[in-house]
């Protein structure tokens, strides 16, 4: 198992150069059965990351480019009348894949957004009255473009809460970029990587995550963190119980990636910025973006031991 996980991380690192921490968080997010929101400028490797993850994990992959004229049917699929059999035949939409890249999710109308977000939450879709299960594992990576927000529909807080983590890749280091320029583009690298695990192995790993020991001191630490956001006046509102559950799951997945059978405070600290920053708002700026500053404030202000 250790080799499988290391191999997967290594393979993705080969494509997305110089971003081992982001890659590890993304893998942890998959292991914790959470969905991932990537927020970054165009061309930073969002698509590359999602494609590489799909390939390494051996998952079927679909990409949905969200545009303002996208309709829920374009995501979920439609029933088409078949003249030969004289009945409606369901043509599944791109959502029936194991890993979905919802590109620029904030460009679509709220109606289409909610079609995807409901599918994320329920694990199934209902089209024409028939409920159809989505594949398992089912994993959504949504991307958002923070600039040129005109004509976009920003995800409301309630929708943001459904993503386990929000990542931002950021610019690569100069050396990583040099390597990228020297040794051909990402496309070629993507084609080169091999699946590091089978679907069954991934399933096993996902099932092993809740087995990771989270001792009472760790639970207390998470409660202290969450309570701080609820009691302090710095935050406009506190973290929800869904956030604390997500924090615990992500910390467990992180501990698994660290090859440890139990969670230590550092695991919580490693995942905390990604898990909470999109759920928190400063009280001076409750309509704002929320962010890393609050996560850092939280980490520094709450005793870990």
């Amino acid at each position: 198992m250790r080799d499988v996980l290391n191999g997967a991380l290594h393979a993705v690192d080969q494509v997305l150069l110089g971003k081992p921490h982001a890659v590890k968080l993304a893998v942890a997010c998959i292991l914790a059965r959470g969905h991932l929101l990537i927020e970054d400028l165009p061309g930073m490797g969002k698509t590359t990351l999602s494609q590489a993850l799909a390939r390494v994990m051996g998952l079927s992959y679909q990409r949905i480019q969200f545009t303002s004229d996208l309709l829920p049917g374009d995501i979920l699929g439609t029933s088409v009348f078949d003249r030969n059999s004289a009945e409606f035949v369901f043509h599944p939409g791109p959502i029936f894949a194991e890993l979905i890249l919802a590109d620029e999710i904030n460009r679509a109308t709220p109606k289409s957004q909610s079609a995807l977000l409901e599918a994320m939450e329920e694990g199934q879709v209902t089209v024409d009255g028939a409920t159809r299960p989505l594949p398992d594992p089912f994993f959504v990576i949504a991307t958002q473009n923070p600039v040129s927000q005109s004509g976009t529909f920003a995800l409301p807080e309630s929708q943001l809460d459904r993503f386990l983590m929000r990542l931002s890749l950021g610019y690569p280091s100069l050396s990583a970029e040099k390597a990228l320029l020297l040794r051909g583009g990402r496309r070629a690298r993507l084609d080169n990587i091999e699946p590091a695990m089978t679907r069954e192995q991934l399933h096993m790993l996902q099932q092993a995550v809740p087995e990771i020991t989270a001792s009472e001191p760790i639970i207390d630490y998470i409660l202290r963190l969450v309570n701080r956001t609820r009691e302090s006046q710095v935050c406009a509102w506190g973290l929800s119980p869904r956030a604390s559950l997500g924090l615990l799951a992500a910390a467990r997945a992180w501990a698994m990636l660290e090859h440890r059978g139990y969670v230590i405070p550092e695991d919580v600290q490693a995942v905390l910025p990604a898990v909470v920053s999109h759920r928190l708002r400063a009280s001076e700026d409750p309509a704002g973006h929320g962010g890393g500053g609050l996560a850092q404030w939280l980490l520094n202000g709450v005793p870990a031991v």
Partner: protein
Amino acid sequence: MTGSALIPRNSLAWLLTAQVVVLLPHLPRLPIWVAVLWMVCALWRVQIQRMRWGYPGIVSKALAILVSVVGVYVTQGTLIGLDAAVLLLLLLFMLKLLEMREPRDALVVIYLGFFLIATAFLFNQSILLALYQCVSLLVLIAALVGLQQTSGRNDPGRALRTAGVLLAQAIPLMLVLFLVFPRLGPLWAVNSPGQQATTGLSESMAPGDVADLAQSGALAFRVNFEGPIPAHEQLYWRAMTLSQFDGRRWSHTAVGSGGGPGALQVEGASIGYRVVTGASHQPWLFSLRGATSTTDELVLTRDFMLRARRPISQTTAYSATSWPDSLLDPQGLDALQRRLYLAFPEGSDPRTREWAQTLRRQYPDDAELIQAMLQHFNREPYHYTLRPDTLGEHTNDEFLFDTRRGFCAHFAGAMTFALRAAGVPSRIVAGYQGGEVNPRGNHVLVHQFDAHAWVEAWLPGRGWISVDPTFQVAPERIERGLQEALRGEGSFLQDSPLSGARYRSIGWINNIRLAWDDVNYRWQLHVLGYESERQLDFFRRWFGTADWQRIAIIALIAAAVVMLPLALWTLRPQKRSNDPRKRAWNKLNRRLARLRLQARDGEGPRHWHARLVTALPAQKPELDAFFDEYVQQTYARSVPVADPASAAVLRSRLGSLLQRLPRKRRPGPVTLID
């Protein structure tokens, strides 16, 4: 407008409650329109909170201010003075509701509330009000706490609990400040509020005035005797002399009381006592015959009274010593005094004058003359009553020879007039007679209905002597009090059905009344009466000094002594943990702190471990061993098990690590590399 700048609903509820609570003690003095205005303001503010209505504009606000000011002027007749000022303050307190947008504005309302709590004590200093204002404080602090609560955490009960804890923590400091804070004199003179409302003696007296006073069951003052309480008939409480007669009224004159203390020749045994009196808004005080006092605030007058330097506007306590058998002015009267005490209007009461001159011819000796007059009152069918007949032009004539029914003022007035007509210098003494002994506090209560008037006559060689014609008519009044004297008439406090004193005959009511009176007495004596003089006594008794510098130091020390345990308890370090892992962790960190190595806020054990290894490379094996064991024991089990074996392992690893740590403090601050 952002979410944080709104006033929490919880806090608004507390704020409105606090306003009602703060306004209530002022209610008896408030015109009804003020209460209506409050309701309008509160309703408006609630509607604003519910986003039904908007905030008033600048015009309506200006209009509200104008209407309030005019309203105060119309009701009070002035904008200056205590009543009007407090009313204006109350109005501001209410109107501020309408521009309370942000927590900052709510703070203004709350601080105004604190101030208004203080102003209520300008009108009333009773123990009930003090207890009530503690509740007001609690509610105001709860509003303050509610203002600081974040949304989602706004539990009104929690705000109240926090406020209660805060208040309780402040009590020790409050006590220290009460004892040692300097009692400053008033910085400015405040017009005494509600002057017309108090009942009591006045500076002039017509027959029948004292009878009105006798219908009041209010308390005049309390006395605590150093020795045993003297008999009822000896308790003649002197307040003032009335020496000028205009044919109908007897009045106090400055000539009678002014010009330094009278010549007191001390004789006989002394009686020491302490008097606590409420706000009478008059300067005179109450004393037994032949009184002196060491209290600075008092002066002795020419007519042997105690008098305050300024009108008594708050509860006041003073000590006095009296020599009832001493001689007053035995050497003689000067011409001015003599003229004053012999004067009466020409043409007034011809029959009385004639009667007095007849007696004079019969008894050339002054003392015998007085005896004869007293005997006249004793033998003739005079009647002591609270319902005297109305008298016409010559009051003394009609009373002495026609109606023969009167109250003490009738008897004293007639006798003084007769004495003056016979050429004996004399005056009326107004004050109180008797009092009710409260066995619980061993003190005497003197009520307004104990008001009395009697006669002082001046005899050569013996000075002023007191005679009481009422005693000749109704000795039970002097020996046992007014209620006994009026037993047959049934007129005792007949207009005050709610007065507790009226029901003295019902045992349990009387017990409750006396117990409550005792509580009040102690409150007045020890809390309200704790003025600068008593404070200095307190300092002398406990600290042996009354020097302000040393007292300031003592006060600081006392405050520190009181607050230190509280502070230590509040800021106590993490209490010793039951968890052996936690104990080992704390022990290590305490030791490392001496080496100037300290974990960052929120630093996890692994990061801390890594930093320590960089700082103390020589101890790496021991550090690794301890931290591995610690992390294993703390985090690798879902429920921590405190078995002795693993605790021992951790202890031994901690022991070997501590042994290897350098003993000495490392010089200078240590910068650690991440």
